[in-house]
């Protein structure tokens, strides 16, 4: 035990200077609300506003304080700085699992949690409330005269055969910066051998690395980039303003599905309200009733062939493996060697 305290203290001392970086702080609900749910989240606030409004309409005396952070900062805030929040919403499944595994989460079980499929619920601590596809976003303009690739092998072929057209115009996540990118990359590496070949091809074309999906989507829409690999399809499809400027492709071989998850944090002050909010999220995601405010595509209701290729990343301790410092170091080294071609 003393050991544990000691390590926490050293960590706190080590990180005390660099507080976690807040991207935005918002407050919803009436000013004289008696209760407040404090949410720390990696999701862009706009995407969740309708769902939060719906919840506040049903609970008029409640306010939501929404803190938007990156997935790494979410971890820092809770583990290293002990920041007080009731709920953590994150797209970084592995980090959410780590939070729960390391004892920062509380159990919650209700009728709503029973709606969640097995692979989307880890020990009633981590609950998936969205499935979001890892897509390829292309600029139709850049592919003029070429077949738009539908899977990884086709992408490799087209990139290889037209290096002059794609040189410096291929984009993907910078794994060192983005948790989502790292998650997609590690799952790709687990699932398909073509991933490494693709990285090598992209590396040979002097790939550009981005920190977020939105940046890639915009770069492609401007024609700056011809193709972006492993972009959150949900974000790209939500950009109705970019219609015609981008095309979103879900790889026909395997499409990894990231699960956005919610956890109830241990030491939450408004436990019951926070549980209510989780139930609200889960009901809109998995309930039979259609909730127009729910911003994500309900893949589990889709019976098309494209949906059959989707593969939700399973919540579980396996996700901890790539968080291992040694493993991460090794993976990033291999990835860098492939993508940087130095």
């Amino acid at each position, binding site marked *: 035990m003393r050991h544990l305290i000691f390590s926490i203290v050293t960590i706190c001392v080590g990180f005390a200077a660099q507080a976690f970086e807040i991207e935005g702080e918002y407050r919803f609900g009436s000013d004289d609300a008696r209760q407040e749910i404090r949410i720390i989240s990696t999701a862009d606030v706009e995407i969740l506003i309708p769902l939060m409004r719906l919840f506040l309409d049903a609970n008029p005396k409640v306010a939501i304080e929404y803190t938007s952070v990156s997935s790494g900062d979410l971890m820092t805030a809770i583990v290293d700085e002990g920041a007080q929040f009731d709920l953590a919403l994150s797209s970084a499944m592995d980090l959410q699992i780590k939070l729960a595994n390391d004892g920062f989460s509380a159990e919650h079980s209700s009728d709503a949690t029973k709606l969640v499929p097995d692979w989307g619920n880890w*020990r*009633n601590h981590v609950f998936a409330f969205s499935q979001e596809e890892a897509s390829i976003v292309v600029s139709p303009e850049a592919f003029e005269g070429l077949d738009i690739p539908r899977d990884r092998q086709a992408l490799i072929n087209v990139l290889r055969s037209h290096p002059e057209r794609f040189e410096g115009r291929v984009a993907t996540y910078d794994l060192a910066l983005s948790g989502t990118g790292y998650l997609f990359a590690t799952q790709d590496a687990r699932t398909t051998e073509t991933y490494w070949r693709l990285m090598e091809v992209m590396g040979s074309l002097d790939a550009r690395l981005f920190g977020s999906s939105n940046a890639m989507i915009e770069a492609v829409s401007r024609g700056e980039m011809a193709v972006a690999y492993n972009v959150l399809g949900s974000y790209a499809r939500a950009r109705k303003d970019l219609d015609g400027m981008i095309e979103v492709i879900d790889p026909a071989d395997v499409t990894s599905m990231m699960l956005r998850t919610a956890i109830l944090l241990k030491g939450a002050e408004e436990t019951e309200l926070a549980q209510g909010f989780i139930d609200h999220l889960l009901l809109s995601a998995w309930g039979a009733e259609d909730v127009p405010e729910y911003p994500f595509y309900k893949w589990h209701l889709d019976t098309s062939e494209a949906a059959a290729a989707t593969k939700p990343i*399973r919540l579980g*301790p*396996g996700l901890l493996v790539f968080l291992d410092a*040694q493993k991460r170091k090794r993976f990033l080294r291999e990835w860098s060697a492939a993508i940087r071609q130095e």
Partner: protein
Amino acid sequence: MSELPPSTGSIRRRLTLQLMSGAAILATMLFFVVLNVARDLAESSQDNILFASATSILESAAVQGDEVVVDIPYGALSMLGNVSDDRVFYRVMAGPMLLTGYDNLPEIVRGRAEPSGFLTASYGGEDIRMVEVSRRLSLNGQAVDVAVAVAQTRNGQAETVAQMTRVALFSGAGFFLVAAVMAVLTAQSSIRPLNRLAGSVSRRGPKDMRPVAGPVPSEMVPLVTSLNRFMARLKTSLSRSEDFIAEAAHRVRTPLATVRTQAEVVLRRVDRDENRQSLREMIRAIDESSRAAGQLLDHAMVTFRTDHLEREHINLADLAEELVARLTPVAELKELQLVTKLDAGCEIYGDAILIQNAVRNILDNAIKYSQTDREILLEVLKGGERSILRVTDQAGGFPDALTTKLTERFARGVNSEGTVGSGLGLTIAKEVVEAHGGQLLLQNTDRGDGACVTLSFP
């Protein structure tokens, strides 16, 4: 009914209780054995998977350049997630140095020779099961022990155990229920031969001294043997005493006849009134004794013959006719009239001598108790399936409430004073009728002026 012997409790209940408590003990043992096995199994299966996980991590450890690296396989941890939703912790040490993982996991103390160790401990407020395996690598010519520890919380195991506890509980309870039912049935079936024996003995008629012949379980053979021996002795002693009585009666009757003849001879010669009176008294006493002796002989004969009935088809009307013919002279002495009303179609299958004897005894009684100038009615008729022979007299009837007692040996009615008799007549009649499976009914006539004895035969 004789008094019940003191009881030491029911064998059946004792047997049932003993079997049931045996079953209860076994069921409890079953419960604990199943529970223990389940717990061991749950623990060992968790140990096995932890061991597999740790081993696969250990396999990935290698020396690269001048450092030990470990490349944890994805499956090493995800396999733990496939079995249960438990929290997972791991630690990889190279010698005293932490390579990766949770450095505050508890230490497993184990000897140098042991390549693996298991531990149940508390970590972060939860119970964990932990496995550590180690391997020696060579780093720059130096031996370095790489130790991989993998731990898991025990919720899944606890759940399995809880589930198995339920299974164990149900199987224990089920076992007990089945065993309890079996116990009751076993106790019942083992007590059944005893009940059957008791039933067959108590259903017997009072004269039935035959040995018990039905098959009995070997444990009951000594009892039945003793019972049979006892009954044989009883039978011998009974027949001996009957023989003795018959012999005695016979011995007495013959000299009595001589004495009576002599007394009558003397009576004719004597003139003095008081002497004649004494002699008449004497003759009367002799008559009574000889009649009693006769009835005792009859009774002995009846007793003997009821054990060995010599059955034949008898027409009751013929039998009655013959008897009336024989008894009419006696009746006429008392100026009594014997009236018959006979249904000629009444036939029974029985021992003619015995039935004759029985009816004669009843008619004798009727004649004896009747005043002069009365009527005795002898009827033979069919009553449904039964053949009925009825004697009705006008001798004043039976005293109330005594009708059952009258059939006992040597019992005589209160109105019998001054009448010659031994009190065996009705006893004989009853024994004969019952030996034939019939019934003897004693009633008074509706007008109350006489008795009505009904013999009904099947």
